[in-house]
């Protein structure tokens, strides 16, 4: 396989990235982006934290940008149609499922009220 043969995979990834909106590069990260992402994750940030995260987001994206310099290599052969027969498998008991939950009530996970 030549290097070009991996383009197929790359095109796929490209489509996926498009769906997230415009690509943000390390220099572009603004305080507004951080506030937006924090809002989506329902995390309350104060101004100091916003500044700090703006810097850190930029740094993280920069690490990923270094991947652009890595030469393309042959991809693993593509897997397709990995499927499972429709047969039930034993899962977790209720007590096991709830074991790590900080709060529970009557077998439910308990969390703050939502809107």
């Amino acid at each position, binding site marked *: 396989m030549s290097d070009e043969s991996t383009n197929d995979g790359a095109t796929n990834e490209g489509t996926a990235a498009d*769906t*997230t909106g415009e690509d943000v590069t390390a220099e572009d990260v603004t305080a507004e982006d951080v506030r937006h992402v924090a809002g989506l994750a329902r995390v309350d940030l104060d101004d100091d934290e916003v500044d700090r995260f703006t810097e850190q987001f930029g740094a993280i994206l920069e690490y990923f940008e270094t991947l652009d310099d890595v030469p393309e290599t042959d991809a693993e052969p593509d897997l397709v149609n990995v499927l499972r027969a429709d047969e039930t498998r034993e899962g977790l008991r*209720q007590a096991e499922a709830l074991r790590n939950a900080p709060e529970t*009530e*009557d077998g*439910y996970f308990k969390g703050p009220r*939502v809107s």
Partner: protein
Amino acid sequence: MTAHAVEAHESESERERDREFAAVIGLEVHVQLETSTKVFCGCSTDSATEPNTNVCPTCLGLPGALPTLNEAAVEAALKLGKAIDADVPDRTRFHRKNYYYPDLPKNFQITQYDAPICADGALEVSVEGDSREIAITRAHLEEDPGSLAHARGGRRTSIDAAEYTLVDYNRAGVPLMEIVTEPDFRRPTEVRGFLSKLESVLEYLGIFDADRDGSLRVDANISMVPESEESDEGSIPSDVLETANRTEVKNISSHKGAEKALAYEVTRQRNALQRGREIEQETRHWDESRGVTVSMRTKEAEADYRYFAEADLPPLEVGDWAEEVEIPELPEARRERFEREHGLGREAASKLTSTKAVADFYENLTTEFDSDLAATWVADELLGELNYRDLTTEDVEGRLDEFRRLISLVADGEITEKNATTVLREMLDEGDDPDSIIEANGMGKADDDEVSAAVEATIEANPEAVADYENGEEGAINFLVGQVMQATGGSADPGSVNVMLRERLNG
């Protein structure tokens, strides 16, 4: 008239015209696919009485757990694709839809985005004799989120009054098909017709169980446009559609609910527009118990789901699979066959094929009884009485043998049709079997001696009517037949009583 007055007059009549509005409705329907296990893990889809008992590390989103796609869910989706004549791509895949809400343990839902497993399908719906084709934009596979309950001080309450939230992940990961239509509906009755047709097709395919709680959920988009924009075929220009403000009505869970919710919303919007108000673009909640739609009033941030490809699931190649998948005879085809093979009219054949259970029952009866008699008793009597009681055949599934017995009593002439109807009503109201009802009420068909005796007694007791008949008054015979019927408690056959009376009086 001055030029100015003409202009005023015209604009007034224009306003008058615009007061007539046409409703534009599109649907997003979620149906649960009937599988034994969830779509990405081996947990059972049975409804559990205890919360968080059909769960595992995958559907709880525990670190390191990986999804594996259920073959049966894909096959069900492909069957639906074939039934609605959709395009199935050679290659399809899954995406993550990210949002942060406690019904999603992973903080994302695995769904499909750019390559739905079905696209560009259609379903034909007939309402009040009019057939219309509803275009289906897409239908994709996804996992159901978990279910939330809102509580305060140990008691369930409304979302607004809640202090905290209780989460059950038994439903998380149950396979769903999200079916999205074009805004092709003009009337709430069409929506109801579409939903029952869709359900019937899904049931015929064996991929859906209407009795499961939450197996059908509907969101509807609705807007009003000036009626003058509607073409004869019912289509509306896309620029008109885009400018009309629309509402999204959520929380609809039945065909009847859909019709009611949309009828309410059409009236609400029409009234607002006629009073010169604007329709606010918003999400509204259908409150089934009050029969109204209520603004959800949440300042929802612009949806930002940051879709990206689900790397834990390799792509699916379904082109050949879609070709090979076999589907059974669908309602439309079966209706045509019933018309052909059993000589039924279209209406009777439609009723008899409305659900697979009814069609199977009828077809089974035709092997034993006259197909016309069976059609009358199933389509008119049984379905009619069930409908009157707000029941469906599923509610009486275990009693089909009793109905068969009743029909055999009619077929063998052991009970009159009139009495059989009474027996049927009693069967449904009291839950008794036909033989004991007939015995308890002495409704077996009267034997000939009994009828002759009643004929004699009637002639004796009604000399005036007899004289009228003998003087050529045809109507008098009906009165006498009625008297005989009454004397035999309805257990005589009116046709033969008529003949007996004439023979006796003419002779």
